């Protein structure tokens, strides 16, 4: 039982980590709490639901298609909406993101209906059995895929030019620009990467729970915020850590404490961290300059 919950937690944690990474990267670069983060990948997943039904898309292809759709949607939103608000007071961009989120959620409800749609999963039900514990092929796949992507992201951010530009912009946008970093490209790239990772996470999510519905991005966005703050917002290793811890906390909490208030665990963590150590586990304490 414990081992099962552990695997469960790690698997969900890896999904949360992917979502949190995209979220924290956007915050790091343009200081936007992206309320619409989850809704972007939700839209991609719902689009895949339609495509699976109507175009008989092979299931594995959704793992490629959803990230592309989500990434494209993210960039489109950045270009059409957030771009105009980069120099406005931060609250304006925040409210715009809220507007985008609400619009996307309700648009999805109009397009696909509010009900939960079934979503098939790879390797339906097949699992490795170790004594009394079952570890499904899907869980193993999720772990491998997600950690693989996170490794790739790490390489991207450390070794590639755009990655270095991203880190520079996150640290100090003005100076990065003065040093020649193409900051607008960085902004778009950040949204694209966030969308791509969100898309992968979203599909895995849908497969894991065999469900897809318009509000499926809402609560994960809040959880991503929790996880990001836990790990230190703006920090990439922090996001990975935060996502993982959150996944484990949820799995173990839901199993041993109560499953009804499962979602509340994330909020409890958030409030705790904000009271105790707002800069997060791996974050830097930013000194407020007058």
């Amino acid at each position: 039982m414990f081992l099962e919950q552990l695997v469960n937690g790690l698997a969900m944690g890896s999904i949360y980590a992917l979502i949190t990474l995209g979220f924290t990267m956007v915050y790091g670069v343009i200081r936007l709490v992206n309320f619409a983060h989850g809704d972007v990948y939700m839209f991609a997943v719902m689009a895949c639901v339609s495509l699976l039904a109507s175009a008989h898309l092979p299931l594995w292809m959704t793992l490629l298609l959803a990230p592309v759709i989500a990434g494209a949607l993210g960039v489109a939103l950045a270009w059409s909406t957030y771009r105009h608000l980069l120099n406005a007071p931060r609250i304006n961009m925040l409210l715009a993101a809220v507007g985008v989120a609400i619009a996307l959620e309700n648009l999805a409800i109009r397009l696909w209906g509010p009900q939960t749609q079934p979503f098939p999963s790879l390797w339906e039900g097949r699992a490795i059995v170790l004594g009394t514990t079952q570890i499904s092929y899907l869980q193993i796949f999720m772990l491998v895929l997600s950690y693989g992507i996170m490794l790739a992201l790490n390489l991207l951010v450390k070794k590639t030019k755009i990655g270095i530009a991203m880190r520079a912009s996150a640290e100090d946008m003005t100076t990065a620009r003065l040093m020649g970093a193409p900051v607008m490209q960085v902004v778009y790239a950040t949204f694209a990467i966030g969308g791509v990772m969100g898309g992968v996470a979203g599909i895995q999510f849908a497969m894991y729970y065999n469900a897809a519905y318009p509000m499926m991005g809402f609560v994960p966005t809040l959880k991503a915020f929790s996880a990001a703050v836990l790990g230190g917002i703006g920090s990439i290793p922090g996001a990975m850590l935060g996502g993982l811890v959150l996944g484990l906390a949820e799995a173990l909490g839901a199993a041993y404490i109560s499953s009804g208030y499962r979602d509340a665990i994330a909020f409890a963590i958030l409030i705790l961290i904000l009271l105790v150590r707002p800069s997060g586990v791996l974050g830097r304490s930013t000194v407020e300059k007058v």
Partner: protein
Amino acid sequence: MPVRALSDRRVLAGAFGLLLVVAPLFSSNQYLIRLLVMSGINILLAMGLNLISGVTGQLSMGHAAFYGMGAYTSALLMLRLSVPFWFSALAAALVAGVFGVLLGIPTLRLRGDYLAITTVGLGEIVHLIFLNWDSVTNGPLGLPGIPAPSLMRVQLGSNLAYYYLVLVVDVLVAGSLFRLARSRVGRALIAIRDDELTAETMGIDTTRLKVTAFAFSAVLAGVAGALFASYMSFISPENFTYSESVTMLLMVVLGGMGSYWGAIAGAGILTIAPEALRVLSEWRMVVYGVALVVLMIVRPQGLFGSGFTEKKPVKKIKGKASESAELKAPVGGGD
């Protein structure tokens, strides 16, 4: 000249006030009166939210939680303990206010963006409690049969009676808020929004004021909730969701964050518009979402606000260097 202008305004205000009081007596259009009552309730919500989010700058996106707490408190007291409306409404205000304080305290250290998402989370938790705490709130089935207020054995159940009740409450609240706006406290709140650190340096007790503002906005929402519960005679968790919070926020943003008149205008518009545009009713929230985005890009100060068009000096991410060098002086706080 100024004296004449002042008395002109007073005459206008008096005429408008008279209209508000007398007009509904001549109208047999119950639908219209219902709309006005709902507008009145929403005005309370918007003014409360405006106080904490617009004037003090603490973005609260879980306002529906206080609304719901007030409604459930009042409804439960009336239904289970046969408490008269006036006391249950008072209790509703108190309960909401206490939660406002409880909410205000941990969020003190949080900056705008963190605060916003935290309030969303808290709003969700409250919604979950309304849904799951079956034994008390009756869960998703809601609470039917909530009685109307009665004054000296006379039930104030009719639309018209309710209209006057809400009107009186609104006038009292609006009056006190307008006085607040012109007082030291009102200006202090604006100072907190504009630059908290400086406000603290100038001797303003930001902690106490922020918590107080939160509490007061919660109290207003609680009263609105009590009024709502008795008016609709039925409440359920679905009346107090995140969508509701966003709608309230849109009322404030549309009217102009920080503007007291703006809150009134925004509440009125967003109560009447969905009715007028019935044909779009299924797309309402999509429209609201898009409206919020468009407002932020095109006219972030809404109708009557004035504080949200400042550009950050120097740090422009793209665009001409000459523009970015301008240091715009902050525009005065909204009325």
